[in-house]
């Protein structure tokens, strides 16, 4: 069955259509892996019965010739997407037992396209974190290990379960969400591909909100082509989300022409700060050379406000989060800890229900919005955000796509940085600016560190120009020829 698991999404799709194997067979192969690698803690909830049922339906649709673009493809869904009748937790104690009576638009789109849901994937609590360690359900583990070490590594976050599952063949693809890097950074840590589309490309309806002006769903896959296919099924205008963009959905897969001649690639010097890991620097240079070799023109650019992006993000995101998470009050769903008064019930429920990092961000967000501090923090951050977005607008006057590293380091050990929030926040340094500007960002695995851990590069594009990003990413991926897999997949 190994051969089935080795297929990319595109290959599996073609194989299903050619009747080389059935969706049920493919799904069973993945369910086997879900069981086998349960120790990675990638899933919070497994839905094997539902998966088999959907696989059967996919086979029927394939036989009838009515199959959608994702028919029979076994995917995992980040447990931030509400799924009708299936436990949805946001990896938080406070959503204990919550079974949404509705489906998120993105997961509904995937369902409609025939995808098979294997289960709900682990994440940082409410998507707040970059290492999956804030999950109430325990950290997901990275399937990769450093050479000569058996220490467990983080898969990155917040979409850590998604990245781990795709990397460990526990899902052919997965949904992620990205607020400050939550798709791209774990994709890089786990050696897979992930794209955060332009803000507004995928509907946020039914996705549990972290920071509404930043949250965006995207696919996490094994290849760039897979990402293009899956994004086509996830995205699209949704009248139920006021921030959803009412623009036509292109054929992303068709954009993968392999031709990037005359494409102008921007290299922002600010992403090469002093003290940057030389390995990361080297990887980046390698990527630049690959794109050059493929005929692209490389241009140095400046994004002068880059260094302020993290602080800006860590004001804006917690501010929005403090308000978005006010609805978890023990009244209508999830956990309730009784109290003598209403206020006591709230305070106890929320103290027990939210983990440490979520509480910290709620408190921080409450503070920066409070009377007397709003202007100094929140409003200031919004102004700096405008300057960061302006940087990108200026850059895209001269270049078509920007190449940067995805993360400053490879995956680190579970337990590291847990007592130093700012050190943890620094993992998002290269992904946050893109999020603040709402631009599409793609992470592609390009090489291995000296310790044998995957490293990724990020491609950033103009608003709603995922096509160019994917086209460049596809070329980069082919040039890099990244074929390494975690040893547990080999074994």
């Amino acid at each position, binding site marked *: 069955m190994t051969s089935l698991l080795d297929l990319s999404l595109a290959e599996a799709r073609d194989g299903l259509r050619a009747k080389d194997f059935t969706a049920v067979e493919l799904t069973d192969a993945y369910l086997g892996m879900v069981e086998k690698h349960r120790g990675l803690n990638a899933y919070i909830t497994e839905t094997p019965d539902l998966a088999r049922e959907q696989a059967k339906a996919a086979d029927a649709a394939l036989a009838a010739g009515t199959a959608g673009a994702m028919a029979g493809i076994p995917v995992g869904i980040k447990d931030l997407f509400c799924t009708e009748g299936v436990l949805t937790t946001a990896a938080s104690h406070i959503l204990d037992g919550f079974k949404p009576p509705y489906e998120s638009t993105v997961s509904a789109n995937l369902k409609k396209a025939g995808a098979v849901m294997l289960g709900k994937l682990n994440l940082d609590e409410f998507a707040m974190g970059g290492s999956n360690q804030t999950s109430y359900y325990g950290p997901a583990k990275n399937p990769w290990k450093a050479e000569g070490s058996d220490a467990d590594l983080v898969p990155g976050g917040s979409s850590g379960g998604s990245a781990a599952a795709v990397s460990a063949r526990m899902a052919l693809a997965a949904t992620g969400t990205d607020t400050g890097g939550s798709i791209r950074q774990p994709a890089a840590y786990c050696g897979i591909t992930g794209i955060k589309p332009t803000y507004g490309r995928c509907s946020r309806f039914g996705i549990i909100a972290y920071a509404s002006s930043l949250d965006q769903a995207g696919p996490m896959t094994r290849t760039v082509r897979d990402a293009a296919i899956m994004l086509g099924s996830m995205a699209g205008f949704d009248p139920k989300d006021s921030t959803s963009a009412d623009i036509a959905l292109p054929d992303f897969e068709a954009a993968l022409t392999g031709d990037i001649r005359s494409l102008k690639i921007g290299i922002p010097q600010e992403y090469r700060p002093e003290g940057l890991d030389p390995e990361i620097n080297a990887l980046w240079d390698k990527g630049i050379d690959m794109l050059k070799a493929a005929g692209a023109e490389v241009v140095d650019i400046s994004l002068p406000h880059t260094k302020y992006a993290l602080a800006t993000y860590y004001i804006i995101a917690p501010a929005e989060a403090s308000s978005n998470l006010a609805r978890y009050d023990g009244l209508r769903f999830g956990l309730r800890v009784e109290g003598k008064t209403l206020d006591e019930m709230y305070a106890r429920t929320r*103290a027990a229900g939210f983990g440490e990092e979520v509480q*910290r961000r709620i408190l921080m967000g409450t503070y920066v919005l*409070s009377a007397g501090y709003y202007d100094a923090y929140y409003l200031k951050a919004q*102004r700096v955000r405008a300057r960061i*977005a302006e940087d990108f607008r200026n850059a895209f006057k001269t270049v078509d796509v920007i190449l940067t590293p995805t993360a400053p380091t490879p995956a680190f050990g579970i337990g590291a940085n847990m007592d130093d929030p700012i050190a943890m926040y620094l993992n998002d340094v290269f992904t946050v600016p893109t999020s603040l500007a709402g631009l599409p960002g793609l992470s592609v695995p390009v090489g291995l560190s000296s310790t044998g851990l995957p490293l990724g590069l990020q491609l950033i594009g103009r608003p709603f120009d995922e096509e160019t990003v994917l086209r460049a990413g596809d070329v980069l991926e082919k040039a890099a020829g990244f074929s390494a897999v975690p040893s547990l997949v080999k074994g």
Partner: protein
Amino acid sequence: MSLDRDTVRKIAFLSRIEVADDTLEPLAGQLSGILDWFEQLKEVDTDGVQPMSSVTDAVLRWRDDVITDGGIREKILANAPEAMDGFFTVPKVVE
């Protein structure tokens, strides 16, 4: 910018998160550390820059005034920790 215990207590109350008295101090320290880190934004010249609250320059779309929802009381109450006679219930509120 450093926060004192009382400020943390106040924020915790506004956030409706119970914070034990002995964690006020360490929490104040942690949050102050983050606030200090925010100070760097002062270096950025933002005179005349409009605050950016959305990345899109689109405007609000309007929906038609038609009834398309509601009539789903059971589903609304299905996840409630406590409900009675078609209502959600909470500890009695005295104003």
